[in-house]
């Protein structure tokens, strides 16, 4: 083995089952995550062919997208959502797949529970019928979203047909300044390369600023790889990764743990390995980021002004910007700071983990949400909810006037009744600001939990760096 390889190439080589000339590789899948929205037609397909699930023990399901975040004792009023959730239970029972449904202590957003249960491990191939599967790349796994046809293929064969991806090094050097977090890093990257910038590639995030992130923060970065066009994004595992994994329910134990860590340490990209593309970002220069438009690439440092269509040289981009500003009802050249906010959403697979809630709570402690603003705090999983309640975060949220909810995807995708009204503005810690994403006619500003909480108090888009004691607040997420 003389040719230096990237971590992506190593994982790829480890999982190629076979490859016919001219055909894509048959790639083995270590872990298949399933949820209620993209799986029903796949199970129907299996039934139509009369075949079963090849490896139920490498498959796990949860209900997250359609689940209400209101009191779990209440019935689900949306008939279609209720039917979809029932269908997941029926399908999993029939095909022998473990399911963490409503009421199960391991229920939660699929990308929050995989890592939490220790199912997400370095060097694995992980797929799910969900584009934010890239989240699991934070552990040094090759993890990507698939369509429902592919969900059916993985259920039936535990493999997929794939062409080997190109690699794209995203190097983040330096150190983040107080008030700037993982969310700002990824929003800055996407603003720079555009939402199609990573198409056909897998991002590998490297550099000192990435090494300094906690696992929760690394997941935030990898989560939004897809918003930069890359189907997957990953970070080579290190002691931070192993520390997070050790002792989790599905992590290896005893001698198997020691052997696994030795194996995992060999995954890092070799010295001299080549990437197809590369970009370097200086963490020291980053500010809190916020989006102003209708895709995640339309983002600016929070102290900047909304760009003007007239400055766009490309006619397509000019048209897109005009359209976006019209939808958002924003003026070219206006400041984004001080823009009125109706709703603040803290949650999602991007920023719904315990450290995200700690950051938001640190801002909200002894403060109150501004009049006329609705703050919705939705834990990413039932376990995150229990932990937040143990630590007293839930009390802080409630005292601040926030709506403290049950776990689920909630207002990130607005399938469960949690949604914006037409024309409303939201600062959201989620991942997509597409038209209507958070409710038909709703307008989304994507930002970090710190920016979201600061804006909830101010009632307008606010810079978290102006909060007193921000140095201490920023450290709350933990190193």
């Amino acid at each position, binding site marked *: 083995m003389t040719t230096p390889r990237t971590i992506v190439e190593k994982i790829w080589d480890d999982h190629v089952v076979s490859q016919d000339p001219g055909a894509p590789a048959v790639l083995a899948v270590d872990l298949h995550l399933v949820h209620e929205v993209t799986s029903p037609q796949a199970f129907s397909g299996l039934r139509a062919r009369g075949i079963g699930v090849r490896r139920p023990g490498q498959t796990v399901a949860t209900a997250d997208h359609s689940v209400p975040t209101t009191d779990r004792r209440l019935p689900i009023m*949306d008939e279609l959502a209720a039917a979809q959730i029932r269908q997941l239970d029926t399908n999993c029972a029939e095909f022998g797949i473990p399911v963490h449904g409503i009421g199960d202590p391991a229920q939660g957003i699929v990308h929050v529970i995989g890592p939490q249960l220790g199912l997400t491990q370095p*060097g694995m191939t992980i797929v799910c019928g969900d584009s934010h599967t890239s989240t699991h790349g934070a552990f040094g796994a090759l993890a990507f979203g698939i369509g429902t046809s592919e969900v059916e293929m993985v259920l039936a*064969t*535990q493999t997929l047909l794939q062409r080997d991806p190109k690699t794209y090094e995203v190097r983040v050097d330096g150190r983040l300044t107080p008030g700037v977090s993982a969310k700002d890093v990824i929003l800055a990257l996407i603003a720079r390369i555009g*939402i*199609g910038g990573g198409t056909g590639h897998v991002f590998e995030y490297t550099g000192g600023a990435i090494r300094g992130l906690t696992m929760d923060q690394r997941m935030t970065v990898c989560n939004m790889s897809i918003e930069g066009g890359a189907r997957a994004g990953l970070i080579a595992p290190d002691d931070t990764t192993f520390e997070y994994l050790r002792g989790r329910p599905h992590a290896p134990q005893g001698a198997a743990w020691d052997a696994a860590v030795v194996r995992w340490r060999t995954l890092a990209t070799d010295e001299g390995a080549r990437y197809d593309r590369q970009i370097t970002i200086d963490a020291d220069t980053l500010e809190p980021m916020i989006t102003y438009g209708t895709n995640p690439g339309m983002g600016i440092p929070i102290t900047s002004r909304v760009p003007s269509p007239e400055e766009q040289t490309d006619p397509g981009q000019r048209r897109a910007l005009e359209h976006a500003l019209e939808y958002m009802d924003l003026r070219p050249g206006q400041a984004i700071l001080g823009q009125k906010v109706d709703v603040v959403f803290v949650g999602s697979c991007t920023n719904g983990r315990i450290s995200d809630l700690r950051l938001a709570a640190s801002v909200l402690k002894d403060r109150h949400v501004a009049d006329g603003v609705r703050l919705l705090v939705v834990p990413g999983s039932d376990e995150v909810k229990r932990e937040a309640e143990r630590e007293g975060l839930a009390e802080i949220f409630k005292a601040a006037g926030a709506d403290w909810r049950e776990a689920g995807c909630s207002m990130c995708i607005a399938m469960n009744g949690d949604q914006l009204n037409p024309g409303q503005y939201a600062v959201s810690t989620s991942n997509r600001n597409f*038209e209507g994403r958070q409710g038909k006619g709703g307008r989304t500003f994507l930002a970090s939990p710190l920016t979201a909480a600061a804006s909830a108090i101010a009632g307008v888009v606010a810079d978290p760096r102006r909060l007193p004691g921000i140095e201490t607040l920023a450290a709350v997420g933990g190193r």
Partner: protein
Amino acid sequence: MADPFTVFTSRVVPLPAENVDTDQIVPARYLKATDKAGLADALFRDWRYNEDGSLKEPRFVLDQPGMAGRKILLVGDNFGAGSSREHAPWALTAWGVRAILSTSYADIFRSNSLKNGVLPIVVDVETHARLFELLAGDPDAELTVDLAEQGVLLPDGSTIDFDIDPFAKQMILADTDELGYLLSKDAEISAWEATHSPRVDTLAGAR
């Protein structure tokens, strides 16, 4: 899967928007269906319809006179960005789209389209601009898509050649699917599994 793919000729629906995301192609509230039927009305729903179900005025391009029945969609760069929902190509197929022309597609959307007999054809920037000009001059211009020959025939007799994954092409032309191919690899998969023990056992920890 749509009907088997043959050479077809069709007029074109022009949609000169860039970065069209899958939330626009099919809004998330239509993802609660547990089958694939009935998605034609969900296609570009919020660009086409008012809250009360009436068509917006001015009408979205799909609902303008003469557009029904067209099988080719000409769109801006990076079409299909965002979520992995296969409902996007399902809705396009349900409306009747069989081929899309753009300068690029989001990865998951492209993969999903090929699995549903919708051809995501990539053309270069100049050709892309030329096609929009052609339609500006003659909105009813007909194009002929020939997958076997990997060409799009224009009214002036010239042809735009396009690349496509040879495996996907073979699958579409034979009207077979990838699952059938993977099932035929059972022996290889079993051999691989015999030397690679599972990294996790989700059943062992089921609570």
